[in-house]
């Protein structure tokens, strides 16, 4: 057997908010016959990485347009292959979310979810030699070209796709990271790469005999993509932090780890709401190991690698069943977080019964997570019909940012108004000391019965709220049915770090990358909208858009913010219930039309 890593990249049209394909697997065949049947017994498969049994993944091709992503790493028969297939779900191949059309009136609604049908086979095939040796890692990067989606003849119909795939060069999108783990007792241990400071595992690979490993990891344009590596399994943990890969750059030096065979002990504790003293269910609890003794995870995540994650149960309790001893001189830390509360990190005193001395319970590693409670009302205008209701999502983010720190959902019945409660951390911006938050309310709508990712109601926002001194008269947010709207424009001379952000009353609502400008080498696809961005922004509002360049950890604004108004679609009369929602006059909003913005200068 040989190791095969599958990655994807794409450069689709940004005229769509989403072009998603439901990928079941990737498979290869040694036959040189491009027409080898799909039923041939020699196909070998790398399945979707659900981690939870056989399944499939819905993946948005726009997520790949600037950076490659790893699909999965599998073990296949070591031999030469010639046919490569991406197997798409034949029954439900995928979906698209189109932007609003530039035509007025538009024939099709935008910002809604539409299923797709393929004009050809849902097994996307290309002929290309792929050699998988017994040792080492073979990487196969596939460019998925969705083609140009063709709209349906009538609302609610399927978009037609004719996608194709091709093999793209691994370089410069992926960069190899390799090394050796000494002391591994068996080949069952795992090396994992995750985005630095997070528990988002990008790729994992099993160590080979001798403890060797190689992974190809996605690399972004400067400042690049930074990873943490950690070894886990039957031995002690070992970590490396802050390995930055830059697209087209050189591979980092070989990474060396040393682990010891050791038995573990159970690490337990509870996560408690500091305000109500009640149990916090579903809190994320992470075990951190610093890369060096100089790293203090209590004060900074720099150098701290998340090596295990679990979730608190219905009683607020969590358990890591077996935690092996930390390396000499580098203690473990434990971090608990959940949106709506402070994130707390504590030093772990490792023993037969590990404890966190700074926690509320000296006999284990428990947490008190403080928060403030915001209350108010949500109004849906007009009220939902009798026997129905509307779910409204409430988000809180530190003022002026797009970081989620609080989340709540409210079900509004035909009464039209419902109270809400929203917990927010007492400390949201430790570096600035500004703990005020912005609030955003968004109705969850469906178009012709199908859930839509973008609201057909106006977004309600309230900026710069002081949780300890909320506005007099309370917080009252109203979302009104107005239909959909799109803002579309271009950002001149963009690169992979170019972003455009949408604001309403100073509250950041959305962030969009800009369509890729550089075709993938060897790709058959040319970006249809190479410099375009677009937002699904509900109408009858004045927004501002601002270009940013993310050349460092902090995005830098470029140029001046531009104001733009999204008009309300002309209401239309229908003999059937409104496909989206009914406005205050008892009318249905018409199909949305795109609103153009002036080009954003570099």
């Amino acid at each position: 057997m040989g190791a095969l890593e599958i990655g994807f990249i794409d450069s689709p049209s940004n005229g769509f908010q989403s072009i998603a394909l439901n990928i079941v697997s990737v498979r290869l065949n040694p036959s040189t016959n491009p027409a080898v049947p799909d039923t041939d017994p020699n196909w070998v498969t790398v399945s979707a990485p659900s981690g939870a049994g056989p399944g499939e993944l819905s993946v948005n091709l726009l997520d790949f347009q600037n950076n490659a992503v790893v699909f999965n790493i599998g073990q296949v028969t070591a031999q030469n292959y010639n046919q490569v297939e991406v197997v798409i779900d034949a029954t439900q191949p995928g979906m698209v979310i189109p932007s609003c059309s530039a035509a007025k009136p538009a024939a099709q609604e935008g910002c809604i979810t539409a299923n797709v049908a393929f004009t050809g086979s849902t097994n996307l095939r290309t002929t290309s030699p792929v050699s998988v040796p017994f040792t080492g890692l073979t990487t196969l990067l596939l460019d998925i070209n969705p083609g140009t989606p063709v709209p349906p003849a009538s609302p609610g119909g399927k978009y037609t796709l004719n996608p194709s795939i091709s093999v793209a060069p691994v370089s410069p999108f992926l960069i190899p990271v390799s090394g050796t783990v000494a002391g591994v007792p068996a080949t069952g241990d795992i090396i994992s790469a995750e985005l630095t400071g997070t528990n988002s595992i990008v790729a994992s690979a099993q160590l080979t005999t001798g403890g060797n490993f190689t992974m190809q990891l996605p690399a972004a344009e400067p400042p690049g993509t930074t990873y943490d590596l950690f070894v886990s399994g039957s031995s002690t943990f070992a970590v490396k932090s802050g390995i930055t890969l830059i697209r087209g750059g050189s591979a980092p030096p070989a990474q060396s780890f040393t682990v010891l065979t050791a038995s573990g002990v159970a690490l337990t504790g509870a996560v408690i709401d500091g305000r109500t003293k009640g149990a916090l269910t579903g809190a994320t609890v992470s075990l951190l190991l610093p890369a060096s003794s100089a790293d203090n995870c209590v004060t900074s995540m720099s150098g701290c690698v998340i090596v295990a994650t679990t979730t608190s149960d219905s009683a607020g309790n969590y358990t890591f069943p077996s935690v092996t001893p930390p390396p000499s001189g580098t203690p473990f830390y434990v971090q608990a977080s959940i949106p709506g509360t402070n994130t707390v990190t504590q030093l772990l005193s490792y023993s037969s019964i590990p404890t966190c001395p700074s926690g509320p319970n000296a006999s284990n590693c428990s947490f008190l997570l403080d928060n403030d409670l915001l209350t108010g009302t949500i109004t849906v205008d007009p009220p939902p019909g009798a026997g129905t209701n509307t779910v409204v999502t409430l988000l809180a983010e530190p003022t002026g940012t797009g970081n989620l720190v609080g989340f709540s959902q409210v079900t509004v019945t035909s009464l039209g108004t419902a109270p809400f409660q929203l917990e927010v951390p007492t400390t949201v911006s430790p570096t600035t000391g500004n703990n005020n938050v912005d609030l955003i309310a968004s109705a969850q709508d469906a178009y012709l019965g199908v859930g839509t990712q973008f609201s057909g109601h106006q977004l309600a926002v309230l900026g710069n709220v002081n949780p300890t001194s909320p506005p007099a008269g309370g917080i009252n947010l109203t979302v009104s049915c107005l239909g959909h709207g799109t803002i579309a424009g271009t950002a001149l001379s963009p690169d992979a770090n170019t972003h455009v952000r949408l604001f309403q009353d100073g509250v950041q609502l959305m962030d969009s990358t800009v369509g890729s400008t550089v075709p993938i080498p060897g790709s058959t696809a040319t970006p249809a909208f190479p410099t375009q961005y677009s937002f699904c922004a509900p109408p009858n509002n004045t927004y501002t858009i601002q270009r940013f360049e993310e050349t460092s950890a902090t995005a830098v604004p470029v140029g001046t913010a531009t104001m733009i108004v999204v008009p309300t679609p002309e209401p239309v009369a229908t003999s059937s219930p409104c496909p989206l929602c009914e406005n205050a006059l008892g009318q249905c909003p018409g199909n949305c039309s795109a609103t153009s913005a002036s080009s954003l200068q570099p």
Partner: protein
Amino acid sequence: MTKARLGGGIALAMLGALALAQAGCGNTFGCGGLTGSSTNSGFSGCSGGQSIPPPSSINFAGTLGTSFIATVSDTIASYSFRGNVPLKVVYVNNKPPVLILATNLSPSPSLLSVQALSGFTTTQLASTSTQGSTISLSVGGPLPALAGPAACDVRFVVSGPINQNYEALLEQNNNAYENLTTAPTLYLVGGASGNVDGVFTEVLGFFGPIKADLVINGVLADTGLGNSFTVKSGCP
């Protein structure tokens, strides 16, 4: 790509195959003296009794570790929970249509891909990589209104080594469900009243013991740990 943060949800459609198998009534254990049948089942072994609806399953996949919050509702009751990828949720004895709302809470761009199934058939699949973005899926058609909390909220929370295969038999009132799948899994038991129990047995390889918590109305009612065990309690 974070443009899709605000708003309701996606709703695709799709097919697929979930875990290993799931059925409306058991074959390995019999049905614990209960009867029932399901038309969407790869198993048999029970006969007679009233028809049992196929369980609805939701597979939360994507980037390992992605945290999310979800609400599952049918026409009778709704259930909210938080979790991390990967997680499977099996809703037995549901009254369709079933609506799933899932919000990606990961602070970094991480894929949350949600697959909804009825029996063996994938009905919808949707995804988001954006923090704060909510996707919605449905099984059996649109649900006009999110239901209120369950009169007796019964959940079995099974954890253990990822991909540890096990067989579960869930029994309540006058019906039973068998499920062959992998940890971790959350079972929601619709229409529960009276006594409830779950029998869990590891099969097909042993990576370590599994643990099952029986949670009723948010309170831990019983717990089990090992290769084969039963947890049981009752609705108040």
